[in-house]
């Protein structure tokens, strides 16, 4: 393939960059970002095309494109920053830093799809500018259009990694179409031909492998650098490897007992639902059950969207003001989405929302948030004929606690004896636990054994919500129905203004059972706390008020009570902790680094260009041309006059003023290059690169220091058109 340079190249590159930006669409609520992305990449395209038309040096054109996009970004950034900083004068740099920080905060703390926040929109435009200029460097600078795939796939990769679902094939098609367009445009639409024979096949392939590996390393580094700033789901394999500190989740049941026994009620939160109806608020669900109680299992936390609820139900909109500190966000089951400040993650299996911020235990203090949930509201008929489902998360919710008294199994079989379907069995269990036989008491009876559940079901028949819930979970599991223990709050007391107040005494646990087609369905076996849900209560007609009997609060008793035997151990949870420092204190360092980078940019570009030109394994004709370009660039950098003739003639003219040792080297290089160009059999180019390095050393050695430094850091060759074009 022969590279051709035309005004079309830059235009195709900017169109391709825009196409690749479309792959970010699924991560954002709307396409507002496309306007500015379009403007930025179009600017680059137009400047590039004009540069090509005017036959400006390509590196100069690329610098101009970069400058044009920077001007646009800074101007637009300052404009946007005004809305964020609220008019406080932080200086242009401060304003842009604030803008970028606001954007990255949106990315880290928001749930997918991300809102069109102004900082985020600016960040995306900046990233696209970076992608565009990288494409320009690869295609028009290094003449390697094939590598354009690298920056394009980075963009695609962000979407593919961050989205919980799979990307649509259409998004990859966009990237692929753009890539192919670049290849076609830069190779004269396929008229390219192989010039010269491919000698030294082994070396050629080896060089390809080296370049490929180098690019893979760069891509991997980029991915590592980029991923902490984008929302990542479970597709982020290196986080599972334990590189991040896991979050310690405390066991909610300890808190539960403490709070229920607290003498005075403390207000936890007030809420208001869209319909004005009260609702249970759930914090977490415990799936592991032992004879001494329920426990958390390690969760795989995600930060993406919660996803749709497939089970049928009624939608609940809720607005909550919370005063109490909690590491879980109390939301109605089953929550579909929420908007809350701070950083949150969720467990997709239980739909528990967990704080992941720096002060996670107090993240809910003073927090106002909104949530939308789909509460399961099957009919009694549906429940009574429902079959037990298979828990998508696994069999943990079917495991009967080890060491449980066999009499419990016998008891369960007696209780469900009359029920044909799994749903009817569940109803029977609930009715059994709600019968007069069981007493509600916060002062859990002293247990003579460690087997609290057996003790409760077989002997004492007295306990509070946690006993009832674990009892039902156990019996359900014995009956073959997946069951888990939900922890949260009962609906609380209604206020005059239509809101509800939830206190510490509303803390509660209840079982959730999994049925085919219905999903997880909450039950209520604790009779003195709340009436059973409508769909489980054969006694209550359809007119019965939904589980809205407020004030189930047990009367506070003094603190003489023993701690219940449900003594869960704090469980270590995997999840994303993020202890990253805010970059505030480092701003100065970053700016200094940036300035240094910009200052070193010509040096880096030139060095990279030299390395690229002198790399081994090119086809002889290409290698010869690259070498001659490099010799020319070296001359121009060092301020030595360059003769643009065919190599041997040019060399003959230039060697006159040269150090004696360099002249034959140059003549030799020139002869080889010329033969590679024009002679029938080409030339052996294997020693060319080494000769050029020798020549460069010799020439640099005789230059005065100032000229040497200028050649290093302000290489003039970057701004001069290549020979013969």
């Amino acid at each position, binding site marked *: 393939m022969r590279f051709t340079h035309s005004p079309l190249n830059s235009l195709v590159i900017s169109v391709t960059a825009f196409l690749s930006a479309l792959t970010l669409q699924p991560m954002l609520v709307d396409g507002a970002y496309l306007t500015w992305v379009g403007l930025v990449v179009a600017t680059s395209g137009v400047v590039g095309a004009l540069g090509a038309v005017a036959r400006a040096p390509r590196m100069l054109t690329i610098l101009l494109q970069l400058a044009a996009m920077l001007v646009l970004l800074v101007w637009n950034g300052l404009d946007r920053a005004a809305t964020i900083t609220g008019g406080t004068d932080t200086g242009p740099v401060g304003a842009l830093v604030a803008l970028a920080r606001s954007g990255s905060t949106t990315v880290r703390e928001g749930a997918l799809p991300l809102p069109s926040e102004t900082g985020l929109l600016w960040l995306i435009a900046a990233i696209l500018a970076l992608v565009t200029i990288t494409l320009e460097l690869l295609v028009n600078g290094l003449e390697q259009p094939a590598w354009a795939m690298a920056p394009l796939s980075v963009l695609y990769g962000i979407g593919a990694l961050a989205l919980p679902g799979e990307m649509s094939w259409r998004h990859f098609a966009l990237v692929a179409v753009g890539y192919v367009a670049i290849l076609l445009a830069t190779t004269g639409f396929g008229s390219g031909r192989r*010039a*010269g024979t491919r000698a030294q096949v082994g070396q050629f392939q080896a060089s390809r492998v080296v370049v490929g590996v180098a690019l893979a390393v760069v891509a991997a580094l980029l991915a590592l650098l980029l991923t902490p700033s984008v929302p990542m789901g479970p597709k982020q394999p290196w986080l599972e490897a334990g590189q991040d500190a896991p979050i310690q989740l405390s066991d909610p049941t300890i808190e539960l007992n403490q709070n229920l026994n607290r003498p005075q009620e403390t207000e936890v939160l007030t809420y208001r639902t869209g319909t004005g109806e009260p609702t249970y608020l759930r914090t977490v669900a415990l799936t592991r059950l032992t004879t001494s109680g329920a426990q958390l299992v390690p969760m795989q936390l995600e930060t993406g969207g919660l996803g749709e609820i497939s089970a049928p139900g009624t939608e609940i909109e809720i607005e909550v003001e919370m005063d109490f500190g909690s590491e879980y966000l109390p939301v109605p089951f089953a929550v579909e989405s929420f908007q809350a400040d701070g950083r949150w993650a969720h467990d997709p299996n239980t739909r528990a929302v967990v704080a992941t911020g720096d002060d996670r235990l107090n993240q809910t203090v003073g927090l106002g948030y909104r949530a939308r949930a789909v509460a399961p509201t099957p009919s009694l008929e549906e429940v009574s004929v429902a079959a037990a489902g298979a828990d998508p998360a696994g069999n943990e919710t079917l495991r009967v606690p080890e060491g449980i008294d066999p009499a419990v199994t016998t008891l369960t079989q007696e209780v469900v004896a009359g029920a044909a379907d799994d749903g009817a069995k569940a109803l029977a269990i609930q009715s059994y636990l709600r019968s007069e036989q069981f007493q509600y008491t916060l002062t859990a009876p002293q247990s003579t054994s460690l087997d609290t559940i057996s003790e409760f079901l077989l002997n004492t028949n007295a306990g509070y919500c946690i006993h009832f819930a674990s009892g039902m979970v156990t019996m359900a599991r014995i009956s073959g129905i997946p069951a888990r223990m939900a922890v949260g709050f009962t609906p609380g007391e209604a206020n005059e203004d239509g809101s509800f107040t939830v206190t510490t005494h509303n803390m509660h646990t209840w079982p959730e059972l999994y049925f085919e087609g219905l999903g997880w369905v909450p039950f209520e076996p604790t009779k003195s706390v709340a009436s059973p849900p409508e769909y489980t209560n054969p006694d209550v007609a359809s007119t019965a008020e939904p589980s809205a009997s407020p004030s189930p609060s047990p009367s506070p008793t003094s603190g003489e009570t023993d701690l219940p035997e449900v003594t869960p151990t704090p469980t270590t949870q995997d999840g994303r902790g993020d202890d990253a420092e805010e970059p505030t204190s480092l701003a100065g360092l970053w700016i200094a680094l940036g300035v240094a980078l910009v200052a070193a940019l010509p040096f880096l570009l030139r060095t990279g260009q030299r390395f690229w030109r002198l790399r081994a394994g090119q086809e002889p*004709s290409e290698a*010869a*041309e690259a070498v001659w370009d490099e010799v020319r660039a070296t001359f121009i950098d060092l301020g030595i006059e360059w003769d*643009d*003739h*065919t190599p*041997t*003639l040019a060399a003959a003219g230039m060697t006159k003023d040269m150090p004696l040792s360099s002249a034959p080297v140059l003549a030799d290089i020139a002869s080889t290059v*010329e*033969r*590679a*160009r*024009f*002679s*029938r059999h080409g030339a052996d180019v294997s020693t060319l690169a080494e000769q050029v390095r020798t020549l460069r050393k010799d020439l640099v050695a005789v230059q005065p220091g100032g000229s040497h430094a200028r050649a290093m850091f302000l290489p003039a060759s970057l701004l001069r058109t290549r*020979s*013969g*074009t």
Partner: protein
Amino acid sequence: MEKETPVQEAAATPSLAEVADVVNRVAEQIAKVIEGKPAQIHTAILVLLAEGHLLIEDVPGVGKTALAKALARSIDGDVKRIQFTPDLLPSDVTGVSVFNQSNREFEFKPGGIFANIVVGDEINRASPKTQSALLEAMAEGQVSADGKTYQLRRPFMVVATQNPIEMEGTYPLPEAQRDRFMARIEMGYPARRAEVAMLTSQAGGERLDSIRPVTDVGFIARATEAIRQVYVAPVINDYIVTLVDNTRTSPDLRLGASPRASLHLMRASRVEAALAGRDYVIPEDVQRLAPMVLAHRVLLTVDAQVARLTNEQVVAGIVANTTRPSRG
């Protein structure tokens, strides 16, 4: 004058270095007669090796014929001179069949064109009919008479001289005829010193006699074979065609160069490369030869004539404005 010994060349195709060596010796010999004109001598030898024909255009008396004769003598070839006059007949050039009484058969009497080097003096004084007889023989390398074909000698080169067309009593060569010459050169007046030197040496006698053959026609024929092996890269061919094509679109020209011009330019470039010791052509070879090879084939527009441009200037401008291929 020391005795020059002919080069003992092998029958095999000579190497390019040998060719260049012989060419240098030939040039030395010619320089004895034509002083101060190394470029013209170089071109004459180049056209000979490129199997082309040379048109020398200048006022009378500047050494046009002397150059042709010196060239022929130094390669030990036979040379014939045809003085073109308005009453010259085509058969005077090509030859004529006459009836031989003794064996009662027609016998072909070859004309002036049967020689290695034919000097056509003042070709533009002959009638167009005679001119075309010469030029057809030049193009085809053979003569047909009475249904028989007679091959011309090899190497075969016509060195035609032409007085500037403004002079009286001339029939200017039509474009189609000029196209058959590979290159046109002008002799130009000798430099003052050279002219003085000429007078001094002429006093000693006919200087053409001092020229010794330094090679023979056989070697020249084999040398042309060697030169055909010089490689012309595709980009160079492309460049040649681009140059020639640009003469066809130039606003200063009402007639551009023909495809034959491309062919001539390529063949001449090969020799140029070989004489520089290369077995491949570089763009500079083409550039150097383009004015010589192209200028006599193009016609200026009236505007360009009014602007006092010459053909050479326009062609040189085209060369300067055509991108030189810098990649193989």
